[in-house]
């Protein structure tokens, strides 16, 4: 890519007393990137964001912003701005005063700040609300004001702390698209924190999946979804069938694994597992297909139940010895042909390359 590094976190550790919130995280966020920190609540993603913003001291390690070391600077000296989870708009100021605040603090004249704040309100499509107080706006509008306020001083990096979590689904989808287009328009590096994996996958150039204070995997959406590195990532991102297995044979890079019920599956990437090792195999539901007629390869199974979820149908299947897996079939003309009633005996095919071997 050749982009310069915007934020470089080097071995950053955060401890609160005895509790370690972050264990030696290192990652580089590139210039002009939409970067997402994704993980369940309590995984340390917000702590990391707050360390970049300067609200939390770094216990150990360094943070660089465009090659300048910043972890000891107070927040008001860091050229980054934050969109807060609950917006934190100044209630006694008008919308325009809120947006102009950062500009004034950076030494712009009142008139200049107000003019630029007006432009920012146009960018977020709220110019008609300039003289209102935040309390007179809806949640979605407050969210836009918070965004305009954080963007107004042209920060080098914009930090977004679960900014969409308080919005309803429709509004959230619309704001996702808008955030993405604003990021492209302004060319500012965005660091976005969320616990919503779908949001992370749709918006981000790259995603850092975190859990229990550790970085689990870093990659683009496709990598993280299709090639999860460990059980946590496989389970947290999307839905998956996580099956216990044992490696029976290694052939080049690939590995043959036996499931608990004796069925075998081939994983393209042995991930360094040794023969005889106990591992897990992850197979995404949409990569299992059902057939009515028998064949040499398929797993024999019984349809337990079908669950209609709108765009597709989820089918729970019982394999030999009571092992269950789930498949997803698209709810389309072609898909409906391969949906079977509960109780039907079927054969299940694993799409080539779909099975991921997970060592940890």
């Amino acid at each position, binding site marked *: 890519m050749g982009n310069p590094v915007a934020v470089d976190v080097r071995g950053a550790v955060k401890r609160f007393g005895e509790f370690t919130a972050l264990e030696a995280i290192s990652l580089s966020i590139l210039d002009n990137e939409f970067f997402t920190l994704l993980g369940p609540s309590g995984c340390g993603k917000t702590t990391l964001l707050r360390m970049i913003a300067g609200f939390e001291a770094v216990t150990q390690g360094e943070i660089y912003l465009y090659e300048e070391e910043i972890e000891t600077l107070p*927040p*008001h000296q860091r050229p*980054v701005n*934050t969109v807060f989870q609950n917006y934190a708009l100044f209630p006694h100021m008008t919308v325009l005063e809120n947006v102009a605040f950062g500009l004034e603090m950076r030494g712009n004249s009142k008139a200049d700040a107000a003019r630029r704040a007006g432009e920012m309100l146009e960018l977020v499509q709220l110019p008609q609300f300039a003289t209102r107080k935040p309390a007179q706006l809806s949640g979605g509008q407050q969210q836009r004001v918070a965004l305009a306020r954080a963007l107004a001083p042209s920060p080098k990096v914009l930090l977004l702390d679960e900014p969409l979590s308080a919005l309803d689904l429709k509004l959230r989808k619309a704001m996702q698209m808008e955030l993405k287009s604003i990021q492209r328009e302004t060319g500012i590096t965005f660091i976005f924190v969320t616990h919503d994996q779908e949001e992370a996958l749709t918006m981000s150039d790259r995603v850092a999946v975190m859990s229990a204070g550790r970085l689990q995997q870093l990659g683009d959406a496709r990598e993280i979804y299709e090639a999860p590195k460990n059980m946590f990532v496989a389970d947290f991102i999307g839905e998956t069938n996580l099956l216990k297995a044992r490696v029976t044979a290694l052939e080049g890079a690939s590995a043959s694994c036996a499931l608990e019920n004796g069925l075998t599956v081939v994983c393209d990437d042995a991930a360094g597992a040794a023969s005889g090792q106990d591992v897990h195999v992850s197979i995404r539901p949409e990569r299992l297909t059902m057939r009515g007629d028998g064949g040499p390869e398929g797993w024999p199974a019984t349809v337990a139940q079908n669950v209609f979820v709108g765009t597709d149908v989820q089918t729970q299947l019982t394999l030999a010895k009571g092992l269950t897996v789930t498949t997803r079939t698209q709810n389309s003309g072609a898909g409906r042909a391969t949906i079977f009633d509960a109780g039907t005996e079927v054969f299940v095919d694993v799409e080539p390359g779909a099975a991921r071997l997970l060592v940890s």
Partner: protein
Amino acid sequence: MAGGAPSASGVATETYAEARGWLLLPAWAVLAIFVLAPVLMMLVYSFLTKEFRGGVIWEFSLGAYDQFFCNRGLFGDEPCAVEWTYIAIFWRSIWQAGLATLLALLIGFPTAYFIATRPQRTRAVWVFLITIPYWVNLLIRTVSMRFLVREEGPLNNALMGTGLIDAPLQIINTNFAVQLGLFYSYLPFMVLPIYASVERYNFALSEAAADLYATKWVTLRRIILPAVRPGVIAGCILVFVPSLGAFLAPDLLGGAKNFMIGSLIEEQFKGNAGNWPFGAAASMILLTLVLILLMIFARQQRRAEGAP
């Protein structure tokens, strides 16, 4: 059905409204007996003629107000010239109470802020500690203060012991001693309302301000203070008003030179030497003054909030 019976809910509402009127009666009674009646009594007394052994003669007179505002010479037969004695006492009282309020604000605000930013569990302990000295009677506390700041007192001894000063400071019988006494008497009234305001303050706003390049000082001035202003105003009123009418601190700490309204009024009702109508008139003037000050304040407040 024209003019039909009112609906069930209509009856319920009326009954409730009626009951509410009756239920409020005790509150009205308390206000009437303990607020309205004493003020009316004072108003009436201020327009009566004084009796020399204390008490009043039931005869209408403007004498008390005349004595307050008019200087009619040694024999009381000259035309009314402005009498400055009492106005000066009032002016000094306002000044003293104002400085005491300022002192209470300067000490009380950081204290309240400190308490409100402690962990939830320890806050109650701090509030409790703040109130402990106030379980002791005000008179005893003021006398103790007198002991503390006198020339041979612990404060001067300590200061001289550390070599900060060579000779004892003259604190007792000064304006400063009065301010100190007033400040100490009413400090909790400043701390508690500010504490209540700061506790409700959303500290994410301070973070947002810092994030937008505001220094700590600018954050305090432009974000925190506007947010906790109701508490600050309540605290200032609660310290200023009783300070204005206080008589213990000026009597015990200020000496004869540093007389305040409270002492002036107190003297009129003490023993047989007093002048009840004059005391009542001075009280009425004080009351009016406080009301006018508060009204001006409230109006500015509304204007500041109404402004876009």
